[in-house]
């Protein structure tokens, strides 16, 4: 016999009354699910982001503490003195006075006569282009001497430390020679790019050794300058 199901309002009311105790808890569970999906994933993402930010900030803090430690142990006077030594060897700009002094001193030391020469006075803030990339001022210097004298001059000036130089050609004959000299300089570039967050690197042992070598060379040059000055002044007495 077929059972007829009569779906009318009465039936629905009966079903409702039978199950009404379940409606509230199911509704609450659905709301909980909605709240979970709506709020928990963004909150979790916020936690991950906070952890990443904290990790990055901790790394920056560690770096800053190390930088402060290094900088706090540096003596300003010593730093300035070292900087002066290096700036004499590799000036920040074209050091015409240093160049002329070096040529003059070398000529006097090696007893050669330097003829007239000219140094092109260019823009101090731009570098001359050259195949070697390092900025330099190049010019020929005529000297009145024989081949041996020319090489004494070249030898001596190659060891000069103030400023750093290079001989790029020599053309020497019996009585005269022409020596191509190049004096280096290096503009620094903007130090405003030096960020407080940047890693501070202390001077290496190799760097300190270089500074000591340059100081010695510069001391020798100064001694020679004073000897030459004394000899010159004696000659005029």
């Amino acid at each position, binding site marked *: 016999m077929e059972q007829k199901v009569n779906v009318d309002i009465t039936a629905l009311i009966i079903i409702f009354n039978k199950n009404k105790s379940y409606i509230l808890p199911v509704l609450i569970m659905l709301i909980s699910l909605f709240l979970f999906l709506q709020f928990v994933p963004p909150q979790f993402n916020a936690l991950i982001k906070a952890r990443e930010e904290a990790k990055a900030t901790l790394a920056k803090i560690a770096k800053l503490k190390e930088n402060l430690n290094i900088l706090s142990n540096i003596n300003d006077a010593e730093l300035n003195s070292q900087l002066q030594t290096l700036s004499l060897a590799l000036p920040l700009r074209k050091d015409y006075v240093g160049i002329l002094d070096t040529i003059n001193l070398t000529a006097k030391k090696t007893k050669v006569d330097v003829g007239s020469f000219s140094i092109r006075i260019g823009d101090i803030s731009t570098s001359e282009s050259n195949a070697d990339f390092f900025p330099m001022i190049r010019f020929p210097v005529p000297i009145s001497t024989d081949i041996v004298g020319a090489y004494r001059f070249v030898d001596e000036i190659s060891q000069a430390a103030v400023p750093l130089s290079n001989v790029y050609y*020599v053309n020497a004959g019996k009585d005269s020679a022409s020596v191509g000299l190049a004096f280096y300089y290096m503009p620094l570039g903007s130090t405003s790019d030096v960020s407080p967050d940047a890693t501070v690197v202390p001077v290496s042992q190799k*760097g300190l050794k270089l500074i000591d070598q340059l100081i010695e060379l510069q001391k020798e040059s100064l001694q020679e300058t004073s000897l030459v000055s004394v000899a010159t002044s004696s000659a005029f007495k």
Partner: protein
Amino acid sequence: MSTNINLLIHTDKETLRQKKRIIFFNLAAAVSLIGVGLIYFGIAILIQIVNPGSLEREHQKLLVEMSKLQSRQKNLFTLNNRIENINKIMKARDTISKKANILFTKVPSKLPLESFEIDNKSVILVGQSNSLSVIGEFLSSLTDMVRKKDTIKSLTLNNLELDTEKNVYNISVRSEF
């Protein structure tokens, strides 16, 4: 014989089962709501514990301290920059005087040089001698250097002539580095 049918017993079992089911559902609803709340506030507490805000304040404080040492930092940067560049230059620059000194040692004393021209790429020596054997000795030394790849890598005899007036041989050689 009892004809009483105790329907209550069955009704009680069913009601009990239903009551249990309702209690379970209510419990599940409560647990889910409380659970979501706990998870949310738990994560919020973890965020507070991590506290990037306080770390950022410490970072800013250290930046302020660094700014007091900024000139020292710039000087140190300049110093390291100079050292690096001086080392590069000293490695890169050609030592013409060194090469010239090596070549001078190969010139016999009986072959005085008339001229000596040298640059980064090549050298030209012009000398004079009244002895061909001295010139030969000179050329052999230079050839040896080329063979051993010592300083020079080629040798070209530009000129060898006899000056009948002075009775000397003039020689000009060119070598490349």
